[in-house]
């Protein structure tokens, strides 16, 4: 599903590579935690998968796409099959919950009919059925992240990339979000989640990939956050 082959990413302004000869594979349906301190290369790895950046050397594959060699005009097709959620939710403040989810469908050219069926489905999936007409400012952090997850899933992605999705949430709300992500994963969507949250990683007992200074430090099939820090 996802494959990195000897990927190195060197930013022009930096001496040390953000990613240094990293190789890894993620199979369809896996749940992978990407851990490591700030600056270890987690975000760079996600950006490479989304083709927000191109690797300095090595290959990145997502499904059948050779991401690094993908023509610019095909990048939207790739991103339509990847869902993304972030620490800061990135909702549009001037649109309702339902409109925020519809937005992802609208700007990828889905029909009115599809939008009318998919939006309520997604709201139900994330447990926000009654709140479709709320504005983002009226939502709690947990609810906002649920909207973001619903939006990310609206286009039925192959992979869900989550960059610190619980970073702004209290532990209890974080657990709810993790339950949701776990449910989504069990329904068949591959999930790659970058996180700092030791408790969550230890509780979930899923695959853990640790990056340290851009290098792959550890890859455990059913890991914990680790005792190193």
């Amino acid at each position, binding site marked *: 599903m996802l494959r990195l082959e000897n990927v190195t990413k060197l930013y022009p302004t930096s001496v040390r590579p953000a990613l240094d000869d990293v190789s890894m594979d993620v199979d369809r349906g896996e749940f992978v935690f990407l851990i490591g301190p700030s600056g270890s290369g987690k975000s760079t790895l996600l950006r490479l998968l*989304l083709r927000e950046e191109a690797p300095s050397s090595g290959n990145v594959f997502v499904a059948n796409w050779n991401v690094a060699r993908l023509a*610019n*005009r095909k*990048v*939207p*097709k*790739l*991103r*339509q*099959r*990847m869902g*993304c959620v972030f620490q800061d939710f*990135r909702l*549009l403040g001037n649109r309702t919950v339902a409109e925020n989810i519809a*937005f*992802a469908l*609208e*700007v*990828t*050219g*889905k*029909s009115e009919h599809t939008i009318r069926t998919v939006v309520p489905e997604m709201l139900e999936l994330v447990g926000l059925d009654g709140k479709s007409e709320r504005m983002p400012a009226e939502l709690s952090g947990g609810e906002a992240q649920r909207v973001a997850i619903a*939006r*990310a899933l*609206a*286009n039925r992605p192959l992979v869900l990339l989550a960059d610190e999705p619980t970073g702004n949430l209290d532990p209890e709300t974080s657990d709810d979000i993790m339950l949701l992500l776990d449910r989504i994963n069990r329904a068949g969507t591959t999930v790659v989640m970058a996180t700092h949250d030791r408790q969550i990683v230890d509780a979930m007992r899923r695959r853990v990939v640790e990056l340290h200074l851009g290098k792959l430090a550890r890859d455990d099939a059913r890991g914990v956050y680790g005792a190193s820090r």
Partner: protein
Amino acid sequence: MNGLGFVWREALAGLRRNVTMSVAMVLTTAISLGLLGAGLLAVRTIDRTQDLYYSQLAVQVALDEPTSAGDANCSSPTCTGLREQLQGDPLVSAVSYESRDQAYQRFLRIYAGQSILQLVRPQSLPATLRVTPKDPTRGDALVAEYTGKPGVRNVVDQRALVQDLFTFLASVRNAAFGLASIQALAALLLISNTIQVSAFTRRTEVGIMRLVGATRWYTQVPFLIEAVITGVVGAVLATGGLVLGKLFFIDRLLSGRLISNAIPAVGMSDVLLFVAPLLVVVGAAIATATGYVTLRLYVRN
């Protein structure tokens, strides 16, 4: 197309969001296009005026006193010789003879009732060979060739006499085009700046669009449509300005005593059928090009 409604709504929202800038952008574009239109009308008027004059203008070969005297139909050997030479000249399309008496009669007709008549006797007017050149702009060649030939008093290219008028019209045209290009630069910069501001205001939306895999149609076309609307609205306003300018300024100026009949009138059809469509096309094209370049240079897709 599926996203047409979306793209259109976004473009209008963009224009509304930044109303003051949009108005400034439209007005600057309108003034620029209006000046361009004025220049185009001047060009058209110059062409018409030249047509009007050139069909009537001739090179006049005035004959000297001995040849002019008492020759009613160019029967003297000098006159006949000159006429045949002119008729055989490749630069000449037609030659006609005006005797001293005919010239005097025409003079009486033109200046009827004016005091200059009392000063003029038939003897002071020469007989003339009126030469219509094939190419009205080549009169000077004829002047050079026939000046000083036996029997010739002088050769006058009438076109040279009205040259001042054309020079004046041409300077009106140049001034209009000059101002139009300065204004066009201002309009260009304003459109470019507005698109940048617009793109900055919508960076969150555009960021999300890119993330969920929206194509350029969705991320960039709204900005282009914003620019095109500006260009087209500017062109419409400019046309309105030209219509008003024609009705309240040009019409009055050209019907005034000084230059009435000297310059042909500017018709409403010139403004609406010739200039207006051009302005719309130019306005839309320049706005689109500016928008495209701006997006390329300053806004990541």
